[in-house]
């Protein structure tokens, strides 16, 4: 029962592949609904059947409230990604996208990475931990290179493979050292036998590089901009949300699973990494003109905010982090839904192309503005509340300077988000600009996301639930 959601996701991945094999091209439109239904039922199974505590396979697969919320996050962002991919893959775009197709493979690969992420947060053994990390990562290489006729997409895929393989090597070597020192592969044993030795710091350095790569922590962020720009837009959306979540999940495992004794020692480092990550991400984003690169740097800076949650040793930090992760997923996907819509309909992807959008499509411009404001933390949107809680964690840990850096960074981020708002609201539209159509699926998804981005900051129930559940069974 505990593994039911994962099983559903894996099965629907297989089902999608089979359907792709046996159906005629005309009937392959039902593949996406199958994948979406698979994820939706996995989410449902998670809510209904999976308890917030439990273990199986001799304690190597564990569910706790943190894992439960991470799984909600992964299935949710996967589901939204599928909904956002529909138009592009079914060819319902005004501008013909080159080299897109092979729907069955696309969705099954996407489902595979989601299942990997779901295993990642539940694994309590470093071997399964590593295998699930690879399962979550390798399909992403394929997805990034999906536009096979496009040089940029190929470059993105190649870059991602090479650097990703390097990061995996670091992680594997770091995890190997754990086994070498403690002679055990289960997290519980390693955690109890770990001593403060030079080898520990070597491991920490290795793993920092590995996690930094996944989470796009500066200075391990350099792959992000090219990959985000080259990949198809829905994949970029997925990378910026779910892949970051996977990085956080892995970091969570290492921090609160293995390195519990050493959290206090690492907090200064975390604070420094957070500060440089958000500062660099924000300052570089200012000069970007391609909206996907722009969102890449925005996502880098958001990673800086997210890891502030690790500054706390009690459950408050993780509650704030998980809450902000959910908020970030909703708001970032709101913005990406608008970008995907605009790209599908016009084929344009630079910031200047958005001029006058508030005249031709006021509702979508409003949604995009709300999403951007929420990302930069403007009340009463959810991003404000989420960031506020994270800042409070840093302040509680005594890092007042980090709060100042983070708050000033929010202002910088507002500066560049306002660039897009300016294009949409202040710059005049082209004289012959007309209302651009939107497909029903995208319209519904976008509406739901925007509403969620607004009410998550006003209705306290989500945060209260997370906070209560986490503090009830904190380590």
């Amino acid at each position: 029962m505990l593994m039911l959601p994962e099983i559903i996701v894996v099965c629907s991945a297989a089902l999608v592949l089979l359907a792709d094999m046996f159906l005629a091209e005309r009937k392959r439109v039902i593949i996406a609904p199958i994948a979406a239904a698979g994820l939706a039922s996995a989410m449902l199974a998670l809510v209904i059947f999976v308890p917030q505590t439990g273990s199986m396979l001799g304690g190597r697969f564990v569910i706790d409230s943190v894992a439960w919320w991470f799984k909600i996050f992964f299935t949710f962002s996967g589901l939204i990604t599928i909904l956002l991919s529909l138009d592009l893959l079914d060819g319902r775009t005004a501008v013909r996208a080159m080299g897109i197709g092979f729907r069955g493979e696309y969705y099954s690969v996407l489902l595979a990475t989601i299942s990997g992420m779901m295993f990642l947060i539940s694994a309590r053994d470093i071997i399964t931990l590593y295998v699930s990390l690879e399962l979550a990562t390798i399909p992403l290489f394929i997805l990034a290179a999906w536009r096979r006729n496009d040089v940029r997409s190929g470059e993105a895929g190649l870059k991602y493979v090479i650097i990703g393989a390097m990061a995996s090597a670091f992680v594997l070597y770091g995890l190997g050292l754990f086994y070498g020192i403690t002679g055990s592969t289960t997290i519980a044993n390693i955690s109890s036998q770990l001593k403060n030795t030079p080898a520990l710091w070597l491991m920490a350095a290795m793993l920092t590089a590995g996690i930094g790569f996944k989470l796009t922590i500066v200075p391990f962020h350099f792959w992000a901009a090219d990959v985000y720009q080259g990949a198809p837009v829905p994949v970029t959306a997925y990378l910026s949300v779910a892949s970051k979540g996977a990085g956080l999940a892995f970091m969570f495992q290492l921090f609160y699973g293995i390195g519990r004794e050493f959290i206090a020692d690492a907090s200064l480092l975390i604070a420094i990494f957070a500060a440089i990550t958000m500062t660099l991400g924000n300052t570089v984003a200012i000069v970007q003109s391609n909206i996907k690169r722009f969102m890449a740097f925005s996502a880098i800076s958001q990673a800086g905010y997210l890891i502030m949650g690790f500054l706390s040793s009690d459950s408050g930090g993780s509650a704030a982090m998980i809450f902000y992760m959910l908020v970030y997923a909703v708001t970032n996907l709101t913005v990406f839904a608008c970008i995907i819509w605009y790209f599908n309909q016009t084929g344009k992807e630079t910031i200047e192309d958005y001029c006058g959008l508030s005249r031709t499509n006021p509702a979508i411009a409003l949604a995009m503005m709300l999403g951007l404001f929420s990302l930069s933390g403007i009340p009463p949107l959810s991003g404000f509340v989420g960031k506020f809680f994270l800042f409070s964690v840093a302040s509680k840990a005594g890092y007042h300077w980090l709060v100042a850096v983070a708050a000033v960074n929010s202002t910088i981020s507002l500066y560049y988000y306002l660039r897009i708002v300016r294009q949409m609201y202040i710059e005049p539209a082209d004289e012959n600009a007309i209302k651009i159509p939107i497909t029903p699926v995208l319209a519904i998804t976008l509406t739901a996301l925007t509403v969620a981005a607004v009410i998550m900051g006003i209705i306290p129930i989500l945060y209260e639930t997370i906070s209560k559940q986490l503090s009830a069974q904190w380590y």
Partner: protein
Amino acid sequence: MGLVSWLIAIPFITALVIIALPQKQSRMIRWVAAGGCAIHLALTAVATWLFWNAAKVDVSSVKTAMLTKLYLVERLEWFSSLGIQYFVGLDGISMAMVILTSIIIFTGVLASWYVEIRTKEFFVLLLTLSTGVFGVFVSFDLFLFFMFYEVAVLPMYLLIGVWGTGPKEYSAMKLTLMLLVGSAFILVGMLAIYNASGLNTFDLQKLATVNFTSDFQKWVFPMIFVGFGVIGALYPLHTWSPDGHSSAPTAVSMLHAGVLMKLGGYGALRIAVYLLPIGATAWGLFFMILTTINIIYGAFGAITQRDLKYFTAYSSVSHCGFVLFGVAALNMMAFKGAVIQMFSHGIMTGLFFGLIGMIYGRTHTRNIHEMGGLAKRMPWFAAVFYIAGFASLGLPGLSGFVAETHVFLGGFFGNGWASITVMRVLTIIATMSIVVTAVYVLRGLGRVFYGPITNAHFEHLRDATIPERISTGILATVLVIVGLAPWFFINMIEGSLMPLINRLNETGATAALR
């Protein structure tokens, strides 16, 4: 939902109604906006009456109170695990500020009667902004306070960027970014207070019962004071103000100079001085020096300006200096002066910017040197402009006199913590600004309204229309009423200033014991 919640909600509901109206119906949009603001004004009157009756009973008990007494309180648990509540109410200072805002927003809507470009969005943003402002003035939960504060700041970007004049995008961006950097400071201080208290609450009244350590107060106080100082145009962080105000459209300048800048003085009193009295006593003199520069610098800045809006913006910097000067002087007289000045300056600048907008709409120039003899064609505008000008230079009988007298007397009396000689010297220097103010106000107004008509085009200008007369008339009347009968106003705020003074005195006592 109680009365205070309605005070926050009415502008927002009006904005929602306007969103639902079709873009083309600009006439209907205007009427809805004016109607919403009129209802708000009526509710504010009811709230004032209720407040007054309730506060009358408590006059003697507040004399020794350590916590400010709140009326019409509403509480609702919000993010309860972090101690965040929806906690609103009114005390004397917030009541005064709510009255001010309600008047300004009503007259501001009337003053923007002739906005024809994207009318719908304009009023929606304007009303959203005023929702934020009302929220700040009635919030007694720090989280709520900060949230409304940011809501009040942000719509300004679009309001100036879209409907402004001159280098509008530059000004809009400068204003927004500077104010938000200020709010970053506030956030650091606020979270530090929250975590240091150990009470797990953002409730201002509960936080006020905590005795924070002296070292803690000494670093947090300047953070919060400077943070609010940015929006209160504290020298040298005032540079957004002239650019922002001169680029903004009329109603936005009115609301911004009239009300938003008061958030600075209000926040400094409500949070910095209220929660951190030891910090206040340690830093009071330093900020008095900065605000003295403010007052003098603003006044001299105004002399050299040719653009009427820059002229008023610099004079605002000078006058807002009085507010923060009063707050930093830390005694009853100065506090009273600061609050009256917030109110008086709000009304006065609102009137100034409203008039400038209306005159600019006719002459199409704001350059003082290009105007002349306008009084012949526009007697109403000239008369009202002179009332505002006289209030600004502190003529007895108008509200500016009451406010400035209190501030200067307060500064001269000194307090128990700073050197009285230095305070007196600073007060005397600041008082000099009145002379400078008289010079620029009289010279500027004389140029604009008297002398021969310099431009043939001015011969055909018409005087104020009905909405313009109502709007400027209300503001001028308020200036006169507060000037002639200030005791009503002073009684209202005094009870809420007593706790601030009591808290300061308590720290003085403990400091002496050490």
